[in-house]
Each structure stands twice: as C-alpha cells, then as structure tokens.
C-alpha cells in the first residue's frame, strides 16, 4: 500500500464513517432517552434509499402504505385506550394519524416526483418516513416502555425482522443506486474528490452540529435530555416522557433517513443492506458506551477507516473484520470497568 492508496482509502473510510457516525448518533440518542437499542435504524437507511429510488422512477413508494397502516393502528389504539379528553383531541388524533398519511398517499398517486430536484425528493422521503418513527414508538415500544433493556432489544430485533420482510415484499430483491447529488469532481493532489463525498461530509457535520445546538440550547432538547437522565424526575417536572419517546424516534429516523439519502448514490442498496449498515453504527455507538456522542462518532469514523483498509487488503473478509472488532472494543470496556456489576440499570 503506497501513500496515494492510503490517502484514497482514508478518504473512502472517512466518507463511509461519516454515514456510520450518523447512525451511531441516532442509536445513542434513542438509547439514552428510551433505553431502546434501535436496531431498525439501518433498515430506515435502506427504506430511505429505496423510497428515493421509487420517487426518481416516478413511482409511488410503497413505504407510504406502511405509514397509512401504522397511522390507522395508532389512531385505533389511541382512541380505544382513551388517550383523549375532548372531541378536539379525537379530531387531532384522526387528523395526524389518518388524515396526514392518506393525504400524502393521495398526493403521491397524482404527483410524479421524478423530475423534481433531488433536495425536494429528499424532503418528500422525510415526509413519508420520519412519521414512521413516532408511529413505531407508539405501537411497538410504548406498551413495553418499562420493560428491561433486554426485552426492548428483543422487541427491536423482532420489529426489524418484520420491516426487512416488508422491504422485500414491496421493493423486491433488486438493488438500486441513486445518481450522485452533485456531479462535479475535482482533484486535490493525488486525490479525486467527488462532489458526493463533500455533500456527505458537509451534511453529516451540519446534522451533528444541529444536534448539539438542539440538545444544549433549546428547551425541547433539554427536556429530552432530562428524560434520559431521570424518567421519573422529568415527569415530575412536567415533561411528558411518552412524548419524549416519540420525539426521540422521530429524530432518530430523521437522522437515519438522511444517512440513507446520502449513502444512496455511493453504494448499491438492497432491501436488507440496511441491517449491516445499522450494525456498523451500533458498533460505533458501543465504542462510546451507548452514552457519549463524540466517542460514538469517533468510533464510527474509525470503523469506516478500518473497513476501507480491510476492503483493500482482504475484501472478502471485510465484514468478518469489521464485526469481530466489537469483541476487543467490549473487552477494553470490560477491563476499564473496575466496579463490576454496578453498571446495571
């Protein structure tokens, strides 16, 4: 491996790592606020890319039907379980959970988005997919919000199995790759820097900065953090922790969708590619102990670098190397934990 190749691998690694970092952040975010290990984050990456592909092909993406179905279920549950006091509440429940998805679905039937600018297509993807976060929280996690981390993890896996199978059902087993968002490439020394990689790095950095501002400087962000620190205490301060869960999921899915839209032009994405991408984010998050945002991001970028080197040196064992890495990371955490057992919740 000479210097030029090393630079190229580093560029690749950092660009991929930036995507993993986004997923690592969404994993830490959800875990901190709800104690859920958000395995389906990767599947939303795939859904975002495949939804974008459907839009670009001038088709109505089938994910909108997932939103329609999920919204109906939420409305039915909310009304059945009396999550309302006035008629106005019922109206709001119906409007957001039934009206909005149906309106969106109807819109997608008439409008062909294939000649829209890519930014508008991306926004449309967000409109379809982001509400699935709160819907999923309400249907799947809220009923077991008090369960152990272990049960929540098994639930996450089960949801992911269902979502991936849905992906195969509606998108089929063909992969897709979106065209680059920006076609300009330019040379920097021996490197060819693609516009897309700059878009990825820029967007990731902007999202990370945005998250920082949100959590440090807005009331809503602080409320979410309070929920993460102490659920009961937050509730006593008048923070609706159920709402925090929904917000956390909306935010996490939004980040995952951004990651998916960014990754779509760089690699071929299949209905089940997301799981392995999400798992890389998770490895990064574990690097940060599922608690530290900067460490999680750092871990994810390191992972990207290691991956790009191993792809070059031993391409068929890329996944083996990347995922085996978790064991030494955990081992290091174990050896650094001197107070055994007291990490229990």
């Amino acid at each position, binding site marked *: 491996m000479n210097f030029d190749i090393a630079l190229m691998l580093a560029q690749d690694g950092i660009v991929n790592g930036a995507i993993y970092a986004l997923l690592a952040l969404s994993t830490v975010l959800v875990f901190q606020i709800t104690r859920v*290990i958000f395995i389906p984050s990767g599947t939303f990456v795939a859904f975002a890319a495949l939804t974008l592909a459907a839009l670009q092909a001038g088709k109505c993406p089938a994910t909108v039907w997932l939103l329609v179905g999920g919204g109906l279920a939420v409305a039915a549950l909310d009304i059945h379980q009396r999550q309302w006091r006035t008629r106005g509440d019922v109206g709001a429940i119906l409007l957001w959970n039934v009206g909005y998805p149906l309106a969106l679905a109807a819109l997608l039937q008439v409008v062909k988005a294939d000649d829209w600018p890519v930014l508008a297509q991306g926004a449309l993807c967000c409109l379809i997919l982001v509400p699935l976060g709160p819907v999923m929280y309400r249907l*799947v996690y809220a*009923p*077991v919000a008090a*369960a*152990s*981390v*272990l*049960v929540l*993890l*098994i*639930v996450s*896996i*089960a*949801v*992911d*199995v*269902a*979502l*991936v*199978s*849905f992906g*195969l*059902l509606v998108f089929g087993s063909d992969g897709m790759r979106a065209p680059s968002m920006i076609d300009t490439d330019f040379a920097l020394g021996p490197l060819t820097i693609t516009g897309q990689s700059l878009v990825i790095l820029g967007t990731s950095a902007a999202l990370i900065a945005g998250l920082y501002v949100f959590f440090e400087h807005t009331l809503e962000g602080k409320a979410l953090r309070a929920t993460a620190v102490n659920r009961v205490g937050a509730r006593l301060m008048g923070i609706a922790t159920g709402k925090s869960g929904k917000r956390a999921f909306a935010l996490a899915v939004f980040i995952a969708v951004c990651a998916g839209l960014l990754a779509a032009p760089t690699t071929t994405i299949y209905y089940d590619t997301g799981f*392995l991408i999400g*798992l890389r984010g*998770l*490895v990064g998050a*574990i690097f940060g102990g599922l608690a530290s945002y900067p460490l999680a991001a750092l871990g994810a970028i390191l992972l990207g670098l290691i991956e790009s080197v191993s792809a070059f040196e031993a391409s*068929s*064992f*890329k*996944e*083996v*190397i*990347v*995922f*085996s890495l*978790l*064991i*030494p990371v*955990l*081992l290091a*955490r*174990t050896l650094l*934990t001197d*107070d*055994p*057992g007291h*990490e*229990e*919740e």
Partner: protein
Amino acid sequence: MIHPRILVLVFVAVVGVAPFVLSPFSVTILNYIGLYSLATLGLVLLTGVGGLTSFGQAAFAGLGAYSTAWLTTAYGLSPWLTLVIGLLFTLGVGAIIGFATLKLSGHYLPLATIAWAVSLYFMFGNLQTLGGHTGMGGLPPVTIGTLALSENSAFYYLIWATVIGALWLSSNLLDSRPGRAMRALKGGIDVAEAMGVNTQRSKLIAFLIAAGLASVSGWLYAHMQRFVNPTPFGLQIGIEYLFMAVLGGAGHIWGAVLGAGVVTLLKQKLQDVLPHLAGSQGNLEGIAFGLIMVLVLQRAKDGLWPWIARVAVKRQPRAIDATAADLLTREKVDTRAPLLQVDGVSKRFGGLTAVRDMSLDISRGEILGLLGPNGAGKSTMFNLIAGSLGISGGTVTFNGERIDGLRPPAIARRGISRTFQHVRLLPDMTVLDNVALGTHLRASHGVLLSALRAERKREEMLMKEAARQIARVGLGAHINDLAGSLSLGQQRILEIARALAADPLLLLLDEPAAGLRLKEKEALSDLLKSLRSEGLAILLVEHDMDFVMNLVDRLVVMSFGEKIAEGTPAEVQQNERVIEAYLGSVA
C-alpha cells in the same frame, strides 16, 4: 391436572413410538424440532432462567457443525471425536465472548453475539477450505458400534435421546445449588451477590451451557444432513431460536420443546398458506414472525408454557428428607471483642457527602438500632457495611479482619447476611427455593455433579436447613408457595429466613418491620430476641419507634450523614439533638 412425572413418561413414550406411526416426512420435521429444541433449551437456561440473552445460538451451532464437517472429511476423524473437539472449540470461543461482556451491563452480551454471528457467517461463507457459500458435503454417518445411523428414523432416535438427556440434565441443574444461583441472576445481581453467589461465574456458566447445547445441535444437524452450508447458522436463525424460546416460555425447560415445535409447525403452515395470499414467497412469513414476536413480548411475555402448566400440570410439593444430615455451623467467636467495628467511615457521591465520619460497633448477642430521619444516610451506611457500595474513607473491621473494599460475596462469606429495604425475592420461585439460595455458601457442589444428580445427599442437607429456617420464622405453612404470592409482611420475614439460612454471625436488617401487622411485628420481635440470645449480632435500620425501643440494646442516631447520638433507648429519647432532628428545633 397431571402429575409432572406422568407428563414426562407420556412425553418419552410419544417420542418413542412416533416414528412407527408417522410418515417419513413428519419424522424429518420432528428431527428438526429436536435439533431446534436443543439450541432453544440453551436459550431458556440463559434468557428465561439467567436473565441474559444471546442471538448467537445459530452461530455456536455452526461452530459445532463446521468443526465436525471439516475434521471428518479432511482428516477422517470419527464423528464422536469431532463432537468433543467441536464442543471444546465452541466453549473456548464462548468463554472469550463471555469474558468480554459479562462484566458490562446485560445488553452487551446479546449485542456482542449479534456482531459475532454476522462475522462468523461471512467467515463460513468466504473460507474456501470450508466450502464457501456452497458448503461442504460428504460427511460420514454417525455410527454406534457397527450400526450406521444413516436412515432418518434411526437418526431420529439419536436426536431425541440427546434432547431428552439434555432436558434431564437441565432440570436437575435448575433444581440444585448452582441452578439456584443461575436463577438468582434474574432477580438482579444484588441479591445473588448478597447470598455469596459469584455472579460473573454463574453468568459465564449459563452462557457456556447455552453455547454447548447449540454446538451439539450443530453436530447433529451436520451428520443428519451429511452436508453443511452457512445459511442455517446465520443471524436470522439465531433470532428464530430466541423467538422459539420467548414463544414457548423462556422461563421453563419445556418451553424450549414447545417453542421449537410450535414455531417449526407454524412455519410449515405459513409456507403452505401465505404464498397463496400474496403470490410471493418468504417475505410475508417474516412480517408475521416479527409481529407475532412483538405481540408476545407485549402481551404474554412468559410465553405459552406457563399457561399450559397452570391448566394441566399439578405442582408437586418438594419433600424434605428429615433424615438428612445437618449442615456444619460456623464457629462462634469470642464474646467480648466487638464483632463489627465501623471506624470513621465516609461516603461521597460526587459532591454530595451521604455519610460523614461514622463510627459504630456491634458485639455478639447485641441488637443495635440505626435510626434517623429520611435521607439521614442509614441505608447508605447499611450498604457500605454489606459491601454493595464502596466506601470513600475509613475502615470497617469484622471479626478482626478489614472488610472495607471487599465485594458483597466475600463479605457474605465472612458471616454477614442481609435483607433489603425493598423486598428482593425471586417471585417465581417457591419459598423453599428462595431460602435455599441463602445456603449457597454452606456447600460447594457445582454444575457437573448437580446435572448428574450426584449431589443429592448434600442438596437434601441444604433443603432441610432451608425448611428449618422457614419453620423458625413461622412460614412453615407456605413452604411450597411461590414467593410472589405471599403478603408484603410475609415476604419481609422470608428475606430474614433467607439471611438466616447462611448461618451468619451478623444479621443486617433494613426496615424489617415495614408493612407488618401488629401480630407479625410481635412475632418478629420475639424471633429477633431469640436470635440475640443465641449470640447473633443484629444491626437494625428501622422507622417504627415502638418496635425499636422495646427491642434494641443500643441505638445510633444519624442525621444528615453524621452520627448525632448513641446510647440506650432511654438515653437517646432524652437527647436534645435527636429531638431536634426529628421534630425540628423549638426556636
């Protein structure tokens, strides 16, 4: 209602005759159910019993399967030899993963197994020596003497004999000292550690047993198919095993067989029916599978078996062998020197000092009350002595030996036994089993002897002792009830029996009278007095003044983390600082 033993006989009989009455296709299905049962049984022991989980069962099965596939085809080794090699190899890998994660919170183990299962799958798929994604064939049949088990129905008996053997070993194990230690993990490690259980070791054992069962299942699979490829050992199948355990009932060994059976048959049916509904194969099955699992976890977390057990299986009271020998008791120590000496102990949580420069001592045959308003630091002090919190300064000396800095199991081993402020029992275990957990340190028999039921004499000794303590605290009538079915007051008393079963020199009681009725309080008071007369030292944290004043020899009063008074109940009642702390100052 059926007697459990009859249920077992019926099960064995049905398994025995099934190949004679069923079609070859059905026998094949039963073979798969048997293989899945083995891997799932491991998960039951790990998840339902030990409170941990793993998505790596299929990957461990893969280690067993690939070990035998490679060694029997490339080197011509006997399958029986490769069974052992594969098993040892699996246990070695399991030990590394276990060691890397077991000290961390409970969710790191499953996460590690996910990543590891994925990486192993790619490893199998890319190593050309192991046949890559196409797999490797030509495995020899398993032979017993001169009989080659190459027919499906012959192999059926090998599989199900293994399953029944594994069920037998597991149920023996659960009904024993190491088994109780494993079951105690689920109640939180605090309890297990206070009873002297080495929780890391128990976790590792549970994980290794699970891995071992999976490995055996993989070996069987390889020689049944005479062919291996990566697919049956991927993460997806690992998830499926967990689903079987959860659906069948992760808390009980029969849940493994039930779950494996139901899921396998259900999949058969779904594969027949679903394609007609959607016209495309495979994907609807996954959706159904995921959604059912979510619903089960939301609505019926204990799975199917407990539901069947309630309706169909008669719970049998555990017989106590009155002729069993008595356990050895601890050597009693010199009366005059203080048994426990706490000297200048402090505890800081970040900037907050919860306990400052506290000193107290307790002698044999003495009851010391620790009083104080809410938030005075009593429970912190209590946990510092018991070792569940580390101290920031000062010394704790017990029986002439420094014990500050020791972990709870080591402190328990030296003769300090405790109860918890918020009752910490294992509600799904009987009163007898809960108290028997307290005897953990009074015997040493381990997993192997217990699984083979070769420790019965010693086990009976523990049971007899547990029964004696239960009778002593007045819960004899409830000995076979589930601990969770008792009233709160009875549960507190049960915790005392559990603590006593450890044969302590010092008993630490955290608010034992809370939630007790008057009669129960009187009985408790009598019990503690009789324990005192036997020479036991007792430290009591309590709010109930009447109860304390009539019982204790001396009192130590804490306020804002510091000792404000010490003396006999009469002296303390007159102490102005105490009155001020409780009632506020007059000015």
